[in-house]
């Protein structure tokens, strides 16, 4: 099955802001992510909505730096 289809659905969230940011990110960047970045993006998607939005808007930082490169891409839009 196509990984991107599953991930695209995981980008449907309870917060409109995340719908907008995540769907735009998948359309623009997903094809260029390497396997490791895809795994990190999936980990980010496991965050609760409000925490993920705070991360994306730069209000908070991750304790674990591994996801940082993907988060930076998300922040840049």
């Amino acid at each position, binding site marked *: 099955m196509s990984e991107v*289809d599953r991930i695209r*659905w995981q980008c*449907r*969230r309870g917060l409109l802001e995340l719908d907008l940011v995540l769907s735009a990110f998948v359309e623009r960047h997903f094809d260029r992510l390497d396997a490791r970045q895809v795994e990190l993006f999936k980990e980010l998607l496991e965050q*609760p*909505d409000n925490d993920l939005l705070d991360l994306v808007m*730069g209000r908070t930082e991750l304790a674990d730096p591994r996801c940082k490169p993907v988060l930076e891409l998300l922040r840049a839009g």
Partner: protein
Amino acid sequence: MALARREFDAVVVGAGGSGMRAALELAEANLRVAVLSKVFPTRSHTVAAQGGVAASLGNVAEDNWHWHMYDTVKGSDYLGDQDAIEFMCRTAPEVVYELEHFGMPFDRTPDGRIYQRPFGGHMQNYGRNPVERACAAADRTGHAMLHTLYQRNVRAGTQFFVEWIALDLLRDAEGEVLGVVAMEIETGEVLIFQAHATLLATGGAGRIFASSTNAFINTGDGLGMVARAGLPLQDMEFFQFHPTGVYGAGVLITEGVRGEGGFLLNKNGERFMERYAPTAKDLASRDVVSRAMATEIKEGRGAGKDADHILLKLDHLGAEVIHKRLPGIRDIAIKFSNVDPVKDPIPVVPTAHYMMGGIPTNYHGQVVVPDGRGGDQVVRGLYAAGECACVSVHGANRLGCNSLLDLLVFGRAAGRRVISDLREEPHKPLPSDAADRPLARLARLETQKAGESVAEVSAEMRRVMQTHCGVFRFPDSLAEGVKKILTVAERAQRTGIQDKSKVFNTARVEALEVDNLIEVALATMISAEARKESRGAHDRSDYPKRDDANWMKHTLWYKEGNRLAYKPVKAKPLTVEPFEPKTRVY
């Protein structure tokens, strides 16, 4: 095609606040309950609710449910049913304390009780002075509520079907609802969920508008299912709008921006609020500002290539003030409109936020239809709660913090009613054609030749609704809007998808969602065009006043022939004297 079938005592469609509160009631009574959700439960749109839950606990200042009831009836502009409003306001403290016992992390007073804060429209002494009535968990009340209810449901044995979309209701010849047909998004598998009780808790449908604060999942699935089953939708003309959402995105820009000195411009760079409200200008009340913005756009003075939005200027405040007094606004503007407000104005537009109408229910959560003798008749086996339901406690406009309250009170009430209605008997045999409708919808998508693009049809629907049925409504524009939305609905019957794969086919899901949205859009436009008055959130240029003599009644829209009917408002509370309609002044 014969479908596989699973049996439950109850099936709940939707795992937001109301669905999970109802499911909890059922699971704790040891019923076999299935909850279907398009997304993981804690990612439901309830997560976006920040304000709080209204309840007259009186923990910070004196309060009682009579005052809360008065505020709610007045807020509803006298379209709310007073029996349901009394029930909700009386029950509020109980459901809030219950949630506290479930582990909800409410903010606390220094002596450990639930802290309460003031909120617009919450008053002491029948509208006399403001009161602290909102119970909150920081600015994450909805988030905390979802997590609390989800944990509790898991413990009680609720069976969640995550990433399933319900397609249609199953009804027998007597009209009793026997469950739903649903599709698993991952596999495309279609299954019958047969149940003694079907409870719809699918939330709002703000996605019918081009500008909406609603998440993408809010596609009115329960409303579409009900409409296709031949049942009415009630008071769909009443949508609450916020004056300033980011154009093209819907993310809200706080009204604090205008409080700090930001103001609105039309395409000519004119500060038009000076014409509409010479004294208050951009600080006029929400409805005055929204109306002025809509009028500027209608008269061709909107900004942008389509002249369809307004500009919110704040660069004159300077970077430092913007950063210090309006934290986060710059980030939001840059992220969602590609504009740096330190240099350029933010494009904004009145934005749909909350749907007051919905599936008609009584205050037990039972779905009702007119009995033909001026009263209500229960649809056996069918219940609804939360934003998708119209009880009606919000009437023509919703009081702040009453939406989370609505979820708790009517989620629980519906769950309890399901339990008391339950009969100890085997499941009825399903009619042989029970699943024909959803299967026909799926088959059409498979075989449609030269189909209309789902994205184009839904964009056109949103544009038509925004232009012709927005925050301020004009008679010529509404009449034109009815014609246009009927055309869009025709096109929606011919949508096609390129990708026919079974697995995680989001194109198929989106096509199915548009089937639901279009029913909501039709109901909203047609109900709005017909209501010749202004009441609550329904604001018409040609009938600026409320007309109690002719219009203190609920609208019912039926899909069949786009027929409208009306039913009286329940003006009599359960135990207290009615609140008689008065002119609404705040």
